[in-house]
């Protein structure tokens, strides 16, 4: 398990919609070691406030030592991150956590909702690289409205997965939930479903997987201070009745290990 605290140079800042941004960072150690579903902790500024690093999924890596994060401005830290300029140096710590366990011989259904789309580009790429042909694998992307989904679609198209799109307001793709599209597939127990998105979405995905006897992996969030097992702040209750730690044992879990409020 190699983790690095790297001084990464920002090489590109893209604003993809009103509040959503994508940062490209030169970070050869982290991008070289990263696996799909892992995350990084980023210092959004060098002052004492905001104090803690912020966790972000690795959106994708490239062979030339870069990785990207895709994020939404929701508070002070992400607001500062949206204002960084190409050439600035950021302190980045990672790759952290356990990522997706790709089942090579099982057809995949990847589901990303809202900001949960972030880790799925890396996952789609990894799955398609591992399998020679991923034309029987699916990816379903959803969001509240067009601007949460459309800017990323082209990046996903290149892999040749079967693509499904949904928005709550119908402004792009199917009007409704990603789970409507999931249910409309010819589901069978051989599938492995990989999901990341809002908790209610993941709970519904898991319940569909459970009734269809499909394996389901989910990437969950938690507040975090350290991201590496030192503070025990990121606890989440498991079915066994004990706490697990999202930064160490997750963020990707087999959905059946966790408790879901539906």
């Amino acid at each position, binding site marked *: 398990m190699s983790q690095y605290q790297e001084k990464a140079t920002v090489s590109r800042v893209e604003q993809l919609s009103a509040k959503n941004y994508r940062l490209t960072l030169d970070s050869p150690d982290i991008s070289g070691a990263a696996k799909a579903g892992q995350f990084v902790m980023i210092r959004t500024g060098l002052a004492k406030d905001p104090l803690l*690093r912020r966790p972000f999924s690795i959106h994708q890596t490239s062979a030339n030592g870069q990785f990207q994060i895709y994020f939404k401005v929701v508070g002070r830290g992400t607001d500062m991150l949206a204002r960084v300029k190409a050439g600035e140096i950021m302190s980045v710590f990672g790759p952290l956590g356990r990522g997706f366990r790709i089942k090579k011989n099982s057809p995949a259904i990847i589901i990303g909702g809202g900001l949960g789309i972030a880790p799925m580009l890396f996952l789609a790429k990894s799955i398609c690289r591992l399998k020679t042909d991923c034309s029987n694998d699916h990816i379903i992307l959803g969001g509240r409205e067009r601007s949460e989904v459309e800017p990323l679609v082209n990046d996903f198209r290149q892999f040749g997965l079967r693509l499904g799109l949904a928005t709550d307001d119908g402004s792009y793709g199917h009007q409704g939930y990603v789970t409507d599209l999931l249910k409309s597939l010819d589901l069978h127990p051989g599938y492995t479903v990989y999901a990341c998105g809002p908790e209610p979405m993941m709970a519904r995905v898991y319940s569909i997987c459970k009734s269809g006897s499909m394996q389901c992996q989910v990437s969950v969030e938690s507040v975090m201070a350290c991201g590496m097992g030192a503070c025990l*702040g990121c606890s989440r209750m498991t079915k066994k009745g004990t706490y697990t730690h999202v930064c160490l044992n997750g963020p990707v879990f087999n959905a059946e290990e966790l408790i879901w409020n539906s």
Partner: protein
Amino acid sequence: MEFVDNREDIFPDLRVNIGSLEIANPVMTASGTFGYAREFENLMNLHRLGAVIVKGISLHPRPGNPPPRIVETACGMLNAIGLQNVGVDRFISEKMDYLAGLNIPVIVNILGDSLAEYREIAERLVGVPGIAGIEVNISCPNVKKGGVAFGTDPSMAAVVTKAVKEGADVPVMVKLSPNVSDITLVARAVEDGGADSISLINTLIGMAIDLKTRRPVLANVIGGLSGPAIKPVALRMVYQVASSVSIPVIGVGGIETTEDALEFLLAGASAIQIGTANFINPRVSEEIVEGISKYVVDENLPSIRSIIGGLSINDG
């Protein structure tokens, strides 16, 4: 002819004494912020630490509090981890081998909800190889006394100290709670109780509210404040305690830089602990050792010990 540089700039003297325990430098990691050290092995050189203090251990395993357990606040954070730990027996069987192999002093932080529990943990640690000392967290509620924290009542603090001293075969450091009106009373009580040294401060009790939901942010409602926000309070308390006891004092609270650490030494601390800063920069404790080393060289000090308690007040 070659010039010989006589300054000992390769190995400046950073040794400090915590009672009978001599450590290589004054930098320790604070309990609960450094796991069981192994988490950091690939991120820093653990051998550079003066000592490592591990996550608080109780007699029986504790599951900890429900989430959310942490929340960031201005220049700090609140935590209500709930003293989650594997219990003393699993600590000894699962964690101590690795820690003993590090060949740096390991100080075991202990906690309990009764006197008997404190004493029993100390007894179970007797003879375990690799343990250089015990740090007693007295900020825990005393179940038999209606949940009042041991550390808020000088007489209870003295009795816990005595109980651990009776059980232990290594030096005992007592960690004070800052949630009292006169910290020197508790400090003198634990000194009388036989403590070999005193560390302070533990977290300050605080609270955060989510206006949107009108609920406390932490599931536990209240939590402990740590980080740079508490440094001035910690520094003041270290100064007061160091002036009122004769045993060594270890300063904790908001230390993030070499300068912070040196201020605590001036205020009277013989050593310091680094807590929350480990979360932001996992290498920070090693960097502070390097920083202190450089300071001793740059200032031409005979040793780091020469600045301990060196604060000048009102004497121009």
